[in-house]
């Protein structure tokens, strides 16, 4: 009941004309940038962070939320029409969606993805409104050692458990942790890894890292393999509207996708890839039209798209309630909060309820706006896909450098942007996941601070980490999550040798 009351209060914040305007600008920008091929929601938020730099926190956080959801809608349009998903979470959508577009059913594919995103987003945001306060009540009892243990869980699940290769995932994470060491140690005031460069004393900016890895890295990667694949934009042919049959076939996949997406997104399990692929394979198994799968089955678009959006709302649960980002996009949202000196978590719920609940309420509004913007206006967004690739990437890089200089006017920052770009290129080329680097940079220093706080309370006794039942359980989960993929891999190899 408290949630409903708080939500109603949040709604009064969200429907203030200025905040509505911010939400509208957010969804417009988010969709526009999200539609551009190669730009996922994380980069969308990272690129647009500097713009909100000088706005007031309440309004700009509402704008982020719009950008976040808008980026998701825009991304699926690209996945359907040109089969280059901006992020791995849209991969499942591209599988069937692009086939549908090729078969002249692009309209219904876009419609089922937009309506499915709306249904899933609305249900999952309701889930967020009820789950987050419960988690906050739990989190109030967390001591620093418990937070440290929780972050260990996030580290392991984001990097090792669900990737292709635990070693490569952990390598990415530790590179991020190493970057997180740079700067002044907050407890003793000593500089670490700054090599006498004064600009490094403040540490590595999360936005510089993210924009470098995602924007510059992606530009280098796409340019270097230009000879390999040409992108073809499928025109939207035929009716945009779904037939009665389409509705009947989309309804259950939407619901099932939401049920996969929200809980998995809310667990610190990182990313939307798992629920989207779970949803895809479930729909493939349950469908009455198995012969259509692989040739453009509408269920294969409806389910994963719903799962994708539901998990996006799900990742906001640990982000808002615990300050724990579990995906690259959530990490960028956290960077957005930190830019105003706000730290999501139980304290923010207590001290700035209007901010948190205003944000949650504005998610509903953003979702509704996006449905309106995306269904009738989809033709407009599709026009953005006609921008020639050279100008598109040139524009992205201009914007990326502009944001970096605006946030921190120094040549050192730009040099770092270039260096991170090269890092991002190499990581793409050698198939290292990128999200763990961002999560490592943002969570590493927080984890260190919590651990040191815990150990100074216990007068240096490390046993505090296992004496608290919460922390002991979480550390055990982290350990299992770390070891499990190696064991499973060993089993697989064993099985392969048997054959």
């Amino acid at each position, binding site marked *: 009941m408290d949630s409903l009351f708080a939500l109603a209060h949040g709604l009064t914040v969200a429907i203030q004309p200025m905040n509505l305007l911010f939400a509208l600008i957010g969804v417009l920008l988010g969709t526009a940038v999200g539609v551009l091929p190669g730009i996922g929601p994380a980069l969308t938020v990272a690129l647009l962070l500097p713009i909100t730099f000088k706005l007031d926190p309440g309004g700009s956080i509402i704008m982020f939320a719009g950008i976040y959801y808008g980026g998701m809608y825009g991304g699926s349009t690209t996945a359907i029409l040109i089969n280059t998903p901006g992020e791995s979470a849209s991969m499942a959508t591209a599988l069937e969606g692009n086939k549908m577009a090729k078969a002249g059913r692009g309209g219904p594919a876009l419609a089922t993805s937009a309506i499915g995103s709306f249904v899933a987003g609305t249900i999952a945001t309701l889930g967020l409104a009820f789950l987050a306060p419960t988690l906050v009540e739990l989190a109030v009892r967390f001591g620093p050692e418990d937070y440290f243990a929780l972050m260990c869980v996030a580290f392991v699940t984001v990097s090792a458990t669900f990737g292709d290769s635990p070693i490569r995932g952990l390598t990415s994470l530790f590179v991020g942790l190493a970057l997180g*060491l740079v700067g002044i140690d907050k407890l003793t005031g*000593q500089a670490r*890894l700054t090599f006498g460069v004064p600009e490094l004393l403040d540490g590595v900016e999360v936005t510089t890292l993210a924009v470098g890895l995602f924007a*510059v890295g992606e530009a280098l990667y796409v340019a*270097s393999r230009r000879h390999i694949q040409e992108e073809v934009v499928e025109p939207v042919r035929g009716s945009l509207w779904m037939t009665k049959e389409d509705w009947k076939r989309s309804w259950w996949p939407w619901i099932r996708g939401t049920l996969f997406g929200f809980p998995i997104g809310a667990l610190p399990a990182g990313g939307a890839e798992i629920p989207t692929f779970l949803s895809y394979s479930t729909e493939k198994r349950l469908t009455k039209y198995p012969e259509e799968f692989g040739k453009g089955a509408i269920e294969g678009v409806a389910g994963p798209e719903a799962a994708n959006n539901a998990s996006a709302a799900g990742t906001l649960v640990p982000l808002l309630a615990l300050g724990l980002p579990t995906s690259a996009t959530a990490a960028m949202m956290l960077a957005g909060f930190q830019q105003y000196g706000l730290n999501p978590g139980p304290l923010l719920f207590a001290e700035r309820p209007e901010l948190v609940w205003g944000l949650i309420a504005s998610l509903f509004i953003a979702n509704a706006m996006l449905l309106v913007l995306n269904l009738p206006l989809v033709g407009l967004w599709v026009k953005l896909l006609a921008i020639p690739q050279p100008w598109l990437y040139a524009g992205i890089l201009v914007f990326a450098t502009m944001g970096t200089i605006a946030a921190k006017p120094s040549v050192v920052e*730009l040099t770092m942007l270039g260096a991170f770009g090269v890092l991002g290129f190499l990581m793409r080329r050698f198939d290292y996941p990128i999200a763990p680097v961002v999560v490592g940079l943002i969570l590493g220093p927080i984890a260190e601070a919590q651990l040191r706080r815990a150990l100074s309370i216990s007068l240096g006794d490390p046993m505090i980490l296992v004496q608290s039942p919460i922390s002991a359980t979480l550390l055990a989960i982290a350990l299992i999550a770390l070891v499990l993929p190696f064991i499973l891999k060993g089993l697989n190899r064993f099985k392969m040798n048997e054959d």
Partner: protein
Amino acid sequence: MTTRTPRRVDKAGLLIALLLLLLAGTIWWDLSTLELSSVYGLGPKAMPIVVAIGLAVLGVGNAVSALRGGLPERESLLWMPIVLIIGGLAALIAFIEFGVGFIPATAVLFACTSAAFGRRAFLTDLAIGFTAGVVIYLLFAKLLTLSLPMGPIERLIGA
């Protein structure tokens, strides 16, 4: 048992492993500049030690996987676009360092990136980049009052 195809040693993979070890070594070396000054609990050295050890272990892990040929297949790549984009970024940095200003720097980066993606109209793109730079400058420096680097052209507009 099936006979396995002899796997090639992945040289790039070994280089990555070496870089990781180098990074671990750098962190370890940096530790020596810190003084232990925490009364209770962990000092500023604890986290770097953990990260350095972790990186060293992962360096070895990556080396093993490179020796086994465990890295994914890679396609051939074009070097020219990479040189062009990095060159464009370098030019942008140089322009800003020497006070040429944000707008010309943006124009050069735009034209270089565009060329990297296969366009052969450098001067046209330079002009487009310049226009884009002016628009961005007016929008962000004037309207949103972000501070962008100034040069002669920006001072002319800004006056």
